[in-house]
């Protein structure tokens, strides 16, 4: 009952005309930029961050969340129509979605993706409303030792799901942590790794890092590759799926939503894992005849529902623990910090309007996306025709202005240039940027909690294993590493990533 009351309270916040407007703007911007080829959700959220600086915390977060699921939706559109996944979580959508488009069923594919996402979003919002308070309550009792171990676990879980080499991903986390430590140590006041540059005393801007890794360096690599881009020319037709489509997809949507909601809560989970898992499940349990790989609508319905549910429930660890499970959530934490709010379990009790308003706005946003996307998809796909040579200078402009406006420091623009060079080098060496961003956000927090935990325990390092919850997190981290290092499982994981 309490949850219901909270949701109603949240709806009150989300349905103020101002917040509806920001949610709508967020959804539209997110969809537009998400549809543009070659810009994924992380870059979209990062580039559009400056739009929220002048807003209060609640409207800013509501708008960013709108941008996020708008971008996700836009990513699915490109996945279906031109076989280019906007981000990794819509990779599996390309398999059956694009096949459907090739067979003249692009409309129903887009339609079922929107309907599935909407259903998943509604259910996931309820999951958040029930689970987040429970988790926040537990988290409020965490001591620094538990927090430290939880962050270790979160980071390990996140890298296990990254593509490619596990060791390189962990190394990227470490590099991210170290870059996150640049600047003034809040505890001792010592200025670290600043090379005598006063501007570096404030640390490296996280917006600059995000822009460099997900914006500029990505553009440079894209320009090198100059892939032949498939142009979508055929007509979409009606986006309304038939009753038969809906009947066929209903259980896929439900299964996808359930899977996505659960996997999204896990640290390191979120949309990516959810969509892969949902596709595999559909392949196994869907009623014959199964035509997966040849345009089976359930291959779109399941993963699209799952990735939306997962994207949404991944807000739970971000909101209640202050721990990002993916780069987008890292950006959200950065946005909160810019707004002067320290993410963590206290947000729910201290800023209920922010917390419940955001959750309720997800439902509003999903409804908007459904209404926006189904009738207007014809308009969005016109954006697919924008050539990359006109798009990338615009990305430069948004990234540079965005980095500058965070603090009004020219230095942050130079920082983008330097960090982009580093990002380019690392991307060339096949190192994933996501773990670095997570490490960057969590680094200072880990140090602070490590310091506090040891201070309370009078320097006794066994505190991390004698406190049961802390020990559980550490054991789980080790277990994950061992499990993933087992050759048989590793082969499976690589196989799954390949698919």
């Amino acid at each position: 009952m309490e949850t219901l009351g909270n949701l109603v309270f949240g709806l009150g916040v989300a349905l103020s005309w101002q917040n509806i407007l920001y949610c709508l703007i967020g959804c539209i911007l997110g969809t537009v930029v998400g549809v543009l080829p070659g810009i994924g959700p992380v870059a979209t959220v990062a580039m559009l961050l400056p739009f929220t600086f002048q807003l209060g915390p609640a409207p800013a977060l509501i708008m960013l969340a709108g941008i996020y699921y708008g971008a996700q939706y836009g990513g699915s559109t490109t996945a279906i129509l031109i076989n280019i996944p906007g981000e990794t979580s819509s990779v599996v959508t390309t398999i059956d979605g694009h096949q459907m488009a090739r067979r003249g069923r692009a409309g129903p594919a887009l339609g079922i993706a929107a309907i599935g996402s909407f259903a998943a979003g509604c259910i996931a919002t309820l999951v958040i409303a029930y689970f987040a308070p429970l988790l926040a309550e537990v988290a409020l009792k965490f001591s620094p030792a538990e927090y430290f171990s939880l962050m270790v676990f979160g980071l390990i879980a996140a890298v296990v799901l990254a593509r490619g080499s596990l060791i390189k991903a962990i190394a990227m986390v470490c590099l991210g942590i170290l870059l996150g430590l640049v600047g003034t140590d809040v505890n001792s006041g010592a200025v670290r790794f600043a090379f005598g540059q006063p501007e570096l005393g404030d640390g490296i801007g996280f917006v600059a890092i995000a822009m460099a890794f997900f914006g500029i360096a990505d553009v440079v690599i894209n320009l090198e590759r100059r892939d032949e881009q498939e142009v979508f020319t055929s007509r979409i037709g009606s986006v309304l799926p038939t009753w038969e489509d809906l009947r066929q997809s209903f259980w896929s949507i439900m299964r996808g939503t359930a899977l996505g909601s659960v996997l999204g809560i896990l640290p390191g989970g979120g949309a990516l894992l959810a969509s892969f898992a949902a596709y595999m499940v559909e392949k196994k349990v869907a009623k014959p005849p199964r035509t997966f790989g040849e345009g089976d609508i359930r291959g779109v319905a399941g993963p699209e529902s799952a990735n939306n549910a997962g994207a949404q429930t991944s807000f739970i660890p971000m909101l209640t623990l202050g721990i990002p499970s993916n780069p987008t959530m890292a950006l959200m934490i950065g946005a909160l910090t810019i707004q002067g709010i320290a993410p963590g379990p206290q947000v729910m009790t201290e800023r209920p309007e922010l917390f419940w308003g955001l959750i309720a706005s997800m439902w509003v946003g999903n409804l908007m996306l459904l209404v926006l996307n189904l009738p207007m998809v014809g308009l969005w796909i016109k954006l697919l025709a924008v050539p990359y040579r006109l798009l990338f200078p615009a990305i430069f402009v948004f990234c540079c202005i965005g980095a500058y406006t965070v603090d009004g420091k020219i230095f942050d623009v130079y920082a983008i240039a330097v960090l982009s060079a580093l990002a380019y080098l690392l991307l060339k060496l096949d190192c994933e940027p996501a773990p670095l961003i997570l490490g960057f956000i969590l680094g200072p927090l880990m140090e602070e909690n490590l310091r506090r935990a040891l201070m309370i325990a009078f320097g006794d390092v066994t505190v991390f294993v004698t406190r049961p919850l802390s020990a559980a997190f550490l054991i789980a981290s080790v277990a994950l590493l061992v499990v993933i290092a087992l050759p048989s499982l590793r082969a499976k994981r690589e196989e799954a990533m390949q698919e």
Partner: protein
Amino acid sequence: MHIRSPRDFWAGLVFVAFGAGFVALALQYRLGDLHRIGPGMFPVLVGTLLSGLGLIVAARALALEGPAIERVHVRPLVVSLAAIVLFALALQWLGLVAAIAVLVLVGAYASPEVRPLQVVALAVFLIVFAVAVFVWLLGLPLPLWPA
């Protein structure tokens, strides 16, 4: 010694270099003890871990076969970075309008395929858009013209 996996080998060395660099710098700060860890302790630990992982990655690259490093194209990288640096300089001395113009007009040449008229039109469009949205609508503090 034969490098079988160039990407991993060089990635490993980059990690070792960064790890060692951070450790070397961090050792100049107070380490403290376990009860009260100083500003140097955590970076030394993480830097050591990073170097260690880098060594493993590099060593494995000598044993396990892996893909070659994709060719580095000089033009997109150098032109992009130069355009950003010019943007920073221009924003400081000449204001936003000139800065965007420079960024777009130079940056567009990062692509091997440039159509000058389109680029000029794009620059004008982006200037109008940025000024209208960021400065007028959102009221972000950006200097428009030379101070």
